């Protein structure tokens, strides 16, 4: 809408910050690796120790990439949801999207025990995790949307999202009653959220989801801009509301569903980052907000992951806890400062 050039410096700085966060994230972990060695591995020369090579290339690098995709992707889906529902409190977590993904994964992990045998083994590959989480979040979003078409009250939609969360918890507890301790543990660890232990194959699948979601978001940015005026104004300017809604929901469920499948439910990034970005970028234009939210989300997630790793110790905290610990105070601070959240 308004010239992008004004924000060029912002974007350059953000990019530099992302690079720094990237190197910090790769360099820090439970095993201390000298920075020089990290650089030589990343530039393809290899480290002086074979274990360092392995740690960096097969553990830390996939984790770092997952962190960037998860942070950026969740932040984007938060931005999309806030505009689509024209509600500053919207986000993948609040609307029950993550609950839906959890339910999908719970059915897969815990239900595999019930179905059992060959089918259970078949269900346990990374693709089926993505499908289950994606399908779960997509179904929840469709339900939320059906309600949106009927009820115009945005508070009602949020309550429905919370209800889906409750239903999920209930269904998961029923499922866990019938499942083995091993499966239960697998699910509980998934729900803590974890960026690590990703195979390169998993990272590849995640990148595909991310790319698809990103393309759909960019394509619908002009429509999202007109939705800022409200549905009726958007319609009067020739916008196809139903088509836009479907595309935006598809983008959100691919992004949030895919990320939740691989990294577990990660709270608050989707909600807080768009609001943080709106403080810095004084615009409502999605063509500027989208890349900004992507970069901010990625940087924030890298930093959260550094904290979660507790560098130089052998402990790793659940990433979900760290993002909540940082995200919730940020939202409160924004509210106290501005007294009102805009979208």
């Amino acid at each position, binding site marked *: *809408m*308004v010239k992008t050039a004004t924000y060029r410096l912002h974007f350059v700085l953000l990019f530099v910050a992302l690079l720094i966060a990237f190197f910090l994230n790769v360099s820090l972990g439970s095993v201390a690796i000298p920075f020089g060695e990290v650089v030589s591995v990343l530039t393809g020369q290899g480290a002086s120790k074979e274990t360092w090579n392995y740690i960096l290339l097969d553990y830390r690098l996939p984790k770092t990439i997952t962190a960037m995709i998860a942070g950026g992707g969740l932040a984007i889906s938060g931005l999309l949801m806030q*505009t689509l529902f*024209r509600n500053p409190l919207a986000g993948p977590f609040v609307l029950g999207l993550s609950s839906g993904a959890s339910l999908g994964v719970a059915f897969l992990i815990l239900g595999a025990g019930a179905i059992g045998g060959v089918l259970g083994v078949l269900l346990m590959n990374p693709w089926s995790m993505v499908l289950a989480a994606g399908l779960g979040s997509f179904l929840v979003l469709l339900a939320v949307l059906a309600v949106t078409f009927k009820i115009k009250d945005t508070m009602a939609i949020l309550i429905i999202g919370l209800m889906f969360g409750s239903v999920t918890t209930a269904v998961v507890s029923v499922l866990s009653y019938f499942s083995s301790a091993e499966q239960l543990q697998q699910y509980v660890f998934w729900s803590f959220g974890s960026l690590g232990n990703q195979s390169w194959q998993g990272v590849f699948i995640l990148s595909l989801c991310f790319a698809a979601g990103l393309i759909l978001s960019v*394509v619908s*940015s*002009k429509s999202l*801009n*007109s*939705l*800022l*005026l*409200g*549905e*009726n*104004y958007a*319609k*009067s*300017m*020739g*916008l*196809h509301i139903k088509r836009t809604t479907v595309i935006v929901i598809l983008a959100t469920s691919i992004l949030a569903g895919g990320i939740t499948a691989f990294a577990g439910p990660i709270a608050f990034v989707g909600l807080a980052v768009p609001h943080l970005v*709106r403080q810095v970028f*004084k*615009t*409502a*234009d999605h*063509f500027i907000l989208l890349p900004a939210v992507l970069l901010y989300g990625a940087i924030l997630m890298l930093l959260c992951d550094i904290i979660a790793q507790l560098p130089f110790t052998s402990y790793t905290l659940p990433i979900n806890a760290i993002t909540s610990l940082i995200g919730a105070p940020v939202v409160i601070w924004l509210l106290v400062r501005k007294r*009102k959240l*805009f*979208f």
Partner: protein
Amino acid sequence: MEQQQAKNIDLEVRNLTIGYKAKNGDAIIADAINFSLREGTLIGMVGANGIGKSTLLRTLTGMQPALSGEILLYGKKLRSYSGFQLAQFISVVLTEPPASKNLSVRELISLGRQPHTNWMGSLSSEDNKAIDYALEVTETTSLSHRKCYELSDGQMQRVAIARALAQDTPIIILDEPTTHLDIYHRAYVLKLLKKLATEANKTILFSTHEIDLAIQLTDYLIVMTQEETSFDTPCNLIESGKFNTLFPSKTIAFDPETGRFVIK
């Protein structure tokens, strides 16, 4: 008056019935509506609350289907236009405020260019010229970097009109553009509409409760009552006594001398 008769007809309504489709029969709100809106004229629409002004406006802008009758936009049926095509001919100013208050004034107005821009919505010099013109005419240039949440009702209304202007359509339809405004801003907005009709040759239709102001400024009026919907010049409507049927005559009555309603 003869000069106006010679002008092209932009929008023509023939024997229109408006209302809502329901399972147990249609709920008719008004019927036998006939009028034609000519290029470069200012048309007001008056009627009591709940008489169907908004429904008629929504039907005319294609947001709601007509129950029967015809709406012709430049001689072609309104329903044959796609939403995108319609956006090239009709822009609207609604009673609802923009959903996002985070938009700056210039951003909001530039959104009006959407039907003319590419998939990225990037603005050409022609687009920027249209935006500058809209800002200038509505005297909102000094507000252009303000955010919507900082604006007063009067300023917001001018910005909403500027957005419609930026859309650069021959027809502008406004739903109660003077509500929530003080007497100065009510007169300001209506004079602005009059200016746009005469100087920029826009066809402007608006609904309003400011009957006395509308009588003074408009070229034509649509008067909606329970019994009928009439369309004529304000003078003719006064002569035929249409304004007396507008409200229950026990409480207020129309004084044809002053063109105002007086309390009985």
